[in-house]
């Protein structure tokens, strides 16, 4: 039992790993002629979310990626990868532009969660996420979401309403952080490993629950190899989804989430 606990928590540790590539890496490596676009045209620009357009192989796509940065300085600037309402609003603005030009959307998700602060609340962190869920449900273009690191709750889901949900083998996706869960349940955040186990947050769990559609194996592969496998899969998926009439695409997207849940 104990080793199993360490198993789930080990994934959390790996998913958060300081050197693990986040959105920025995948965008740079996968997308040609990338142009980054800034700002939500409402209030500001959030460096925790990178968004823009570029070519995937030789076709245009819109890409949105969460990024926490490498150096301490960059991490401060990017709020350690925790998006503010401006980040979600920028993402939505770019996704709507993608819809207008019938361009598929790729989202890379990796963040401990939406930024938690007074200003974020003042500017409607909850509303920003809610708006993305609502709008993404109706966006008339294929959306592929990939969890590359830690998929932290609503802040991750805000880029996670999609037609195909992918997770890297060692990524996690959870309703609450194991630390948060442990401190609420047992008033002891050091019990995070037990909480991680109880939450069933690994890519393998989520695949089993049919919450995600695909796991990209990491094994002992290099980042470059993982990125290349991911790229092939994304291209294949976009090709599949692009063949669908828009009505079918949206119906299937609705159904994909509609069927999730277990009740009596």
């Amino acid at each position, binding site marked *: 039992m104990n080793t199993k606990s360490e198993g789930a928590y080990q994934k959390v540790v790996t998913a958060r790993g300081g050197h693990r590539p986040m959105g920025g890496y995948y965008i740079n490596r996968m997308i040609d002629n990338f142009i980054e676009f800034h700002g939500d045209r409402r209030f500001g620009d959030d460096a925790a979310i990178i968004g823009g357009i570029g070519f995937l192989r030789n076709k245009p796509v819109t890409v949105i990626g969460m990024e926490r940065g490498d150096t301490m300085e960059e991490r401060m600037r990017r709020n350690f990868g925790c998006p503010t309402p401006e980040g979600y609003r920028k993402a939505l603005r770019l996704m709507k532009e993608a819809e207008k030009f019938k361009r598929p959307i790729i989202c890379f998700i990796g963040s401990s969660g939406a930024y*938690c602060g007074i200003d974020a609340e*003042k*500017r*409607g962190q909850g509303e920003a996420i*809610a708006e993305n869920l609502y709008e993404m449900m109706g966006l008339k273009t294929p959306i592929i979401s990939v969890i590359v690191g830690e998929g932290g709750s609503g802040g991750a*889901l805000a880029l996670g309403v999609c037609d195909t949900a992918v997770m890297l083998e060692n990524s996690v996706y959870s*309703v609450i952080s194991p630390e948060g869960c442990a401190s609420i349940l047992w008033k002891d955040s050091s019990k995070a490993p037990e909480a991680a186990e109880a*939450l069933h947050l690994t890519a393998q769990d989520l695949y089993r629950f049919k919450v995600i559609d695909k796991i990209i194996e990491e094994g002992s592969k290099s980042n470059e190899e993982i990125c290349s496998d991911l790229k092939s899969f994304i291209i294949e998926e976009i090709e599949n989804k692009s063949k669908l009439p828009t009505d079918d695409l949206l119906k299937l997207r609705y159904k994909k989430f509609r069927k*999730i849940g277990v009740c*009596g």
Partner: protein
Amino acid sequence: MWGRIMFNLFKNDKENKIENITCKKCGAETPSDALRENLMICPECGAYMRMGAKDRLNMVIDKGSFKELDKNIKSVDPLSFPGYAEKLDAAKKNSGLIEGVVCGEAKIDGIKCAVFAMDSGFMMGSMGSAVGEKITRLFESATKSKLPVIGFITSGGARMQEGIYSLMQMAKVSGAVRRHADAGNLYTAVLTDPTTGGITASFAMQGDIIIAEPNALIGFAGARVIEQTTGEKLPEGFQRAEFLLEHGFIDLIEDRRRLKYTLSNILKLHTKGW
């Protein structure tokens, strides 16, 4: 400690025994029946106390007009999460409900609508698969029958004991709200104390019209968590209804005693066209 009273129509009088309720704000003790008569507003200081789902519905809908839907959908324990089964049992006892939301069709001043009311007495109104499923079904059936939806919201957020299933309910319900809206139907959200976390980040903020009760706590991140992570001192009235109104996130704050009138007025304004 302020025990939550069970005002459940489906209970007989013996179970509905009268006790004194202490106001958390002013300390005044009021018998539960009198307090209930006063819509759970403290007669001494005017503080709003939390209302159960059934009381909430009775406060606004026409007498005898309620037809409950999907009343047998209930939570299971899909992850065998430590302590969840016991918490569900306790929640059922505490709230007199079998799940944290009551859904159905009703009339308000004779106008038919679909309604849901969450109950903070049931695991803090948290949303697991069953709550998500019930609300989704309500929006789906309202879309089919072209009914406006009124939702009385109170929730601590997603129910972590159901792990990823509970997170995904946010997307699921959002999809149903979207379809209801695309078909040209009205959704009015009434935010009551407290409305937080994943609920604020989904259907609480997706109403065509968003009403809040005075002083209701409404936010995404928990105030204590914000204080701990940022070290900032929270401003006076932070995350209260008045704070959200000031920052432009809700349409209006309405007195509980005027809520029925306002909802009825909104419904009328959306039915009578030129």
